[in-house]
């Protein structure tokens, strides 16, 4: 009886071990197969995401139409683009009573060479864009030039504008770029719009007319 018992127990264990062994090896195979396929794509370092249509530098250059040495330059530099911190600088003052034409430069300096966003991206897709301007506390008025590019929803884009400086004063100047607005209106030259998203909204404070 005893010998029979021992044999039985061995048989039982053998049986269970076999099953477990089979099972464990099956599991590992499965793990290996699945992890192998999933790991393979991953051995390389991740690719850098270069955000499209990044705008790092925005420069507004106002030039006196009768004296091209009289300029006012409003510059904004945001090394990380629209989602990062920016620094604004103002060079020069407006002359009371003078008329200025505005030259816009929008670039992406994070690329090498720098990307001319205005001429390469915005103007070719002018029908999706609209520049808006606003001032506060400073006697500036503006008009959109007749040869200004046509922008979104039947309005002038706002890349060619003429500004007139009134009496001596100081205040803020704001420029905004709207992407895919639902409606635009330039009957008031500053421009109004609904919908879309703001690609830019920069305010320069402490602009002066002397």
């Amino acid at each position: 009886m005893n010998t029979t018992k021992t044999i039985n127990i061995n048989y039982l264990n053998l049986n269970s071990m076999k099953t477990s062994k089979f099972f464990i090896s099956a599991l590992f195979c499965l793990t290996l197969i699945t992890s192998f396929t999933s790991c393979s794509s991953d051995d390389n370092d991740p690719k850098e995401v270069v955000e499209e249509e990044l705008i790092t530098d925005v420069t507004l250059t106002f030039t006196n139409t009768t004296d091209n040495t009289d300029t006012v330059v409003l510059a904004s530099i945001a090394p990380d683009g629209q989602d990062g911190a920016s620094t604004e600088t103002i060079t020069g003052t407006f002359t009371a009573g003078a008329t200025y034409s505005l030259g816009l430069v929008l670039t992406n300096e994070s690329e090498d060479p720098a990307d001319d966003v205005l001429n390469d991206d915005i103007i070719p897709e002018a029908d999706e864009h609209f520049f808006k301007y606003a001032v506060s506390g400073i006697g500036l008025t503006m008009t959109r030039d007749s040869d200004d590019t046509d922008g979104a929803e039947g309005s002038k884009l706002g890349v060619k504008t003429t500004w007139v400086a009134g009496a001596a004063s100081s205040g803020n100047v704001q420029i905004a770029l709207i992407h895919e607005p639902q409606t635009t209106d330039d009957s008031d030259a500053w421009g109004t719009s609904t919908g879309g998203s703001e690609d830019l909204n920069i305010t320069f404070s402490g602009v002066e007319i002397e």
Partner: protein
Amino acid sequence: MKNIYLILFVLFSGFIYGQNCKSIFIGEVLDFHDKKPLINATIKLVGTNKITIADEKGKFTFKDLCDQTYNIEVSHIGCETKRIAVLINGDTYIKINLEHHIEELNEVTLSSDSFIKKTKTGQESIIKTKDLERFSAASLGDALQQISGVSSINTGNTIVKPMINGLHSSRILILNNNVRLQDQEWGIEHAPNIDINSANQISVIKGSGSLAYGGDAIGGVVVVNPNNIILKDTLYGRTIIGGQINGRGYHISSTLNKNYKSGWFAQIQGSYKKNGDFKTPDYNLTNTGLNSVGLAARLGKKKFESGFELYYSYLNSEIGILGASHIGSAFDLERAINLGQPILIEDFSYSINVPKQKITHHLAKANYYKRFQNFGKISLQYDYQNNQRFEFDVRIGDRKNIPAVDLTLQTHTLLADVNLDANLDRKVDFGFMARYQDNFANPDTGVRRLIPDYTKYDFGVYTATEWRVHDAIVLDAGLRYDFNRMDAKKFYRKSRWEERGYNVDFSDIIIEETNTQFLTNPVFDYHNISASVGVKYRLNEKNQIILNYNLASRPPNASELFSDGLHHSAARFELGNLRFNKEVANRISASHTYTTSKFNVITEVFYNKIKDYIYLRPLDFILTTRGPFPLWSYQQTNANLFGIDLTATYKITNALQWQNKTAFIKGYDLDTNLPLIDIPSFNTTNEIKYSKEAWHNFSASLKSDWVLEQNEFPDFNFEVENELNGEMTTIDISSPPPAYHLLHFYSEVTFPLHKKTRLNIGVGINNLLDTSYRNYLNRMRYFADDLGRNITLQVKLNY
């Protein structure tokens, strides 16, 4: 098996000696799991009038048997009756094993919806099939709120994240058929990927009582289980079809089960859900539709001694996010808050536009277990999960159809568990877990990754013991150690890197430099100890007390460490911190249960002190060239939470029942002495239910939900300057909405159609009075009201 040789031997000798009707048959009936004799087992020789009973050693004897094969039937109270064929040839001896403790060994298979608690001393509540079925059209998070102390944190009303005693996301473990869900649960707007229709019963354990599941359940554990397997030749199924007025939604779900007495089983389940824009009492919630498809299949063999299961589940959801919640700068947020209604309200539509989420979750598992006599049970499990998450934002031009978030998370887990239950009074459980996880953030989004690529390794070992001191006292204790390694590859903008001071502390992890960014390789190791000890004491027939202490540790998740960038769908910057430590929680809880035939009260209190608690808060705003954006930053602090959950049921008459559920919780930041953000306010529900079995199981109930205003909240409001005119504007993102009271009605009736076929019809009216309200724990509360009246109709067929 054991007796094959003996039988062969006897058979062989039988041929030599020929027919003989003088043989003696001696047998022994033993308990399988602990080898104890089964006294008074009845042994019957089928087809004869011979019957006997096992003595105090489990032994029995039949005399004067002929040399032939007899069928014997062995039965014992509480055991499954066993029939075996025995060949008698000369004097024969056999051992018979029966299992007398199927129930104590957690192997109940008597019905498909009987339940077993997962813990002995945890604050555990169970939601049964019948109650779950009412939520067929809703989500897991909705169903769990039936438990006092369980609430949810929502993004709209289709993204519902469970919250247990004020804690959510990574602090709650969700198990689907014993597989820990790995579905980017760190995100507040990431709902658990579980089809409620695949669940047969759900256990909610407050705190980290059950260490076998993991040691980081600082909030709690949700255990979702499919049907039990019945050892019966049977085919049964269930189909639920329903519709609702609000959102013009409809859903269908069907399950079919085939079980065999031999233990083989198969199950297949599918569900489909669709709804369009929901509405509040006053306006449509444009773009809040949902499409969801779920599939699950199981196959296996379940016997007492061994078994295996193969399981696969698939869930695909497309979820619209309230259109008006897409905002630009902080001024848009301020306008939305002050407007009092969504900026965008359109006519009803089923179409789901951006912003939206599209999530696919696959889960596959295989497990095997075997029981050994006088030892216990060994289980092995492997599972694989694949979670694909797309978040589409309002994007412009060519990028319109490209998701802003595109993450693929793959997880492999191996589990081994040994449960020593030969001694039912002192069970011991131990096991290990190994997990490998790979997250891939697709760069094709054209948006800098909010969450980086990473691989994560987890190893855990645990042991738990359960000790029945005497009939009235059960003790349990557990200990677990986990090792986690997070190995990420992340790009940081140089400006951010310096602003955070990482250039001082982490300069050695930079592996590559580009024009504006550093590629870094942070590798973090965490060692976590978790423990639990508890006691259950039955004072008398009516009163029972449970005391429990848990220690839980949770390493920071990928979002808390690495978040860095504009979370478009939330229009805010989110910033993580590489310097975070793990969270360590000490939770003490006590429960008292009072039960009489009419009155039942469960009182649960807890105190949870969390060291290095991580939370996300509005901190400031970042001035960008697109205007000011809110900046939310993860913070680490010490916190405590405490509260009381009450569930009381009173049978007024046989037909009339009243139930109250009340939860009260407080949470404080101990470093700043401010209340914690996103803590549920005091809420109480009262339900009166009339049921009459004679009228086809008719029941009707009226429920009142009363939620007070959260008067303890941290004031994280901030001021933003309108740069053009210098005006300061306060952005009020902290003030909770006012208190509200809702009434809900529900009624159902069940008709027997055929022998086994039952038809159940349920009608519900949620928010009966069409009350306008907003919930503090709904992220959409800034933009819109919550749902108005909703009439639901659901037909359920069991067959």
